[in-house]
């Protein structure tokens, strides 16, 4: 049931989309690039020491990413990875993870 609301929104997007428009699942696809370390849909393996992003407040995720990008938050690797994504992409990623239960 949890999938219903975002999918309904995506249906609207999909009917409006043409080949050059953004993919209706862009946020999902971008967030999936994080799953190698942060778990499928942000559900990190318990006890793995990685941040579980599923259900984390969007503003909190975005603040963390902004701090990594600016260098305000010390990191071993995220300062290098966050710089690879545009702010618009990070917004989609944070939106997707925040919506995960």
């Amino acid at each position, binding site marked *: 049931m949890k*999938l*219903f609301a975002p*999918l*309904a929104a*995506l*249906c609207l*997007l*999909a*009917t409006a*989309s043409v*080949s*050059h428009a*953004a*993919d*209706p*699942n*862009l946020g*999902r*696809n*971008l967030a*999936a*690039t994080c*799953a*190698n*370390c*942060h*778990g*499928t849909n942000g559900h*990190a*393996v318990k006890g*793995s*020491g*990685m941040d579980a992003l599923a259900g984390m407040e969007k503003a909190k995720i975005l603040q963390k990413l902004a701090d990594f990008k600016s260098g305000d938050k010390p990191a*071993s*690797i995220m300062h*290098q*990875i*966050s*710089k*690879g*994504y545009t702010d618009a*992409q990070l917004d989609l990623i944070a939106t997707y993870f925040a919506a995960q239960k």
Partner: protein
Amino acid sequence: MMLMKRRDFLKVGAAAGAMASLYGCAGGGSARGHVVVVGGGYGGATVAKYLRMWSEGGIQVTLIERNPTFISCPISNLVIGGSKTMEDITVSYDNLKSKWGVRVIQDDVVGVDSAKRMVKLAKGGDMSYDRLVLSPGVDFMFDQIPGLNNAAAQSKILHAWKAGPQTIALRQQLEAMKDGGTYAIAIPKAPYRCPPGPYERACLVANYFKKTKPKSKVVILDANEDVQSKKGLFVKAWNDLYKGMIEYRPNSEVKDVDVATNTAVMEFDKFTADVLNVVPPHRAGDIAAKSGIKLVNNRWVDINWLSMESTSTPGIHVLGDAIFPAPTMPKSGHMANQHGKLAAAAIINMLSGLEPNPAPVVMNTCYSFVDEKNVIHVASVHQYDAATKVVQPVKGAGGISVARNELEGKVAMGWAKNIWADMLA
């Protein structure tokens, strides 16, 4: 047994399909069809799971894998170094079957008929597909090293560059070696699987020698002109941790071996080791060439970066180490997993009558152990560029560790647990 599995598979597929139609829309839930995935490694297992998950069970997925369980190449150098066991790097396919409804078949694909959209299995006969995903990894070009081009030689001079029986066998050779002996690893010219892997292995073998056989030596025979990844960090580890134990020889391409004496033969030089570990040059796994798809330099599969589909053969997508890589893109398990998701998203769109995502992104992280606790990384992010039609590395992003550290040793194991779960749990 097989019948039961097939019936369960169809039941799961039908139930999930009904669910998908309840919630379905053009975004993914309406995708239908049968996708056959060849190879259950980092790429193949990922695409199988994500096709089932993202199509909400609408797409039927059959994964054909010759091994009974997944054994990870990343972390396998710790088994060779003696601080991890095979059990630590082995993961079952059970969750792919029971949780995700993937039909997993242990068999070999011996041929592909891309016109009829059929694959031929060694034991299981013919199987039809709507879309085929090849994630075959690499096979070795033993013909480039004539003395190694037979089974007896290959059982003595190991590559251990596919995790499995050779991982154990190399560990046993190292254990049997006397103190004061020499281990040599020969690295092929790039591109090869896991650019930092050979240098990590040299560290972990030296770490084992330091503790148990301190008079022993490690020699790196590199066909390349320099260290291919994380050079400064590896050289510092060799100097700080293994002073006088590791010798690095660039421009040392092994052209042949003398099996009887364990000797590597280079153009102008020879080297005899107690344990000789030769990683031969590789190319895309054999099934790629057998399927008739276009190979670059007769070695790597040329793909469309929006879909991972072969540029020559519609309906066949190729992932992982087998592809002709984009600029600066390493052949790594992490990258294969990312290819798997890119392909899954594209296939679902294509089976729903939509174009693939026009703006895919993939990224890579690679952790190398320089001893059993300290790790160094390299990371990169690659965004699709419409002008070149290739995913290009993002300038200013990515990079390497400042210095080796124990924190990243913990992160590396966290990475392993999460990526294995992302593929298989």
